[in-house]
């Protein structure tokens, strides 16, 4: 097994088991989506119209839930030094971390999004478009969260810093995912374009964020 694969398998296992794995962000997203209707009232038209935005927003916040743990523990317990001196570069490690975060922790988000969309009164195809948007956006959300997590690793109250760094950078994903759901709901024909933009943002994040994460981690190690 190559070093890259060995680190991915380990990180996936640690992400899936440590800190509750997918349970934390999933519970957060479910709770948020269950509470919103209580706050804005039972009008089905309002709920249906609000659904794409509310669901995309809940997924964004859920993706920030585990960002603090992505690198914080590794920095304090010496694991990051081990990785920095291992055959796997910090850039590759950043890709691995984000990949493990998506596939072991954030994966329920599109499913929860789909169920919530149906519960909020969206039709099947629209709920599917929204859910697909979340699938395409998750890598981007994870990479941006990871970038913020790397910058804030080892900093006191890093949760606050992560939210302040990541939230503005995740705005395009929020807009495209919600836009895809809303366009499908209203039949404007722009759902496909929004989905492609969400995917494009994730690809751009994949091309850029790992280098930023590696630079941030190197700085935290000094």
């Amino acid at each position, binding site marked *: 097994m190559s070093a890259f694969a060995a680190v991915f398998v380990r990180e996936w296992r640690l992400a899936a088991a440590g800190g509750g794995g997918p349970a934390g962000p999933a519970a957060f997203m479910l709770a948020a989506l269950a509470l919103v209707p209580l706050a804005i009232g039972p009008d089905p038209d309002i709920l249906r119209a609000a659904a794409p935005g509310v669901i995309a927003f809940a997924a964004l916040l859920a993706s920030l839930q585990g960002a603090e743990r992505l690198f914080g523990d590794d920095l304090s317990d010496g694991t990051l*030094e081990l990785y920095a001196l291992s055959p796997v570069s910090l850039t590759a490690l950043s890709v691995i971390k984000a990949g493990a975060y998506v596939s072991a922790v954030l994966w329920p988000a599109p499913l929860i999004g789909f169920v919530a969309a149906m519960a909020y009164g969206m039709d099947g195809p629209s709920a599917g478009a929204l859910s697909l948007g979340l699938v395409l956006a998750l890598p981007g959300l994870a990479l941006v969260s990871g970038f913020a997590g790397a910058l804030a690793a080892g900093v006191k109250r890093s949760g606050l810093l992560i939210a302040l760094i990541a939230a503005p950078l995740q705005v395009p994903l929020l807009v495209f995912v919600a836009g895809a759901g809303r366009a499908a709901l209203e039949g404007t024909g722009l759902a496909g374009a929004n989905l492609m933009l969400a995917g494009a943002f994730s690809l751009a994040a994949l091309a850029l964020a790992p280098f930023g994460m590696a630079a941030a981690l190197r700085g935290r190690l000094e």
Partner: protein
Amino acid sequence: MSVTALDTTASLGVQSLILSRGGRVLVRDLTFSLKPGEALVLTGPNGTGKTTLLRAIAGLVRPDAGSITAAPLAYLGHGDALKSAETVMQAMSFAARLHGAGDGRAALEVMGLSALVFRTCGQLSAGQKRRLALARMTLDPHARLWLLDEPAAPLDAEGKALLAALVADFRASGGMVIAATHADLGWSDVRTLEMGVSEAGT
């Protein structure tokens, strides 16, 4: 110590090194070299730059000036880099796969951890964690230089003896060791560099 012609694959050369931390110069104009089989123990009060020097040699800290030429190395810092959810065996086999070297059982046996393979790292005592971290470090087959930061701090007498034997074996095979420590490690034939006393290394 004299600086000899450096064989970069097998030795360590530190030349005119200046290191600072938080604006304070810790190491000024340090020059030394290490040849295969040699061991160097860094001593000195807290805050005199022992850890910083080890981290600089490992490449984790950038020196203010000077050069470091180091053979492939393995580094063990203050932290044991263990995850409490992982079992001892998982931690070892991960490190073995990372370096493409066996499955790590032999190294566990050397450090007296064979009976603990199915324990999670969170259930180990501080000394057992240190032993495990040392065992893991030996799995890198390319490392010719071990950098150890307080390797024996939580170890009992038996652990210290095992560490001394491990280091002696490694040196006999041409490996080099640099350790920062307050405790007497009981290693034979080591050079000592006392940090924070003289401006330059001996």
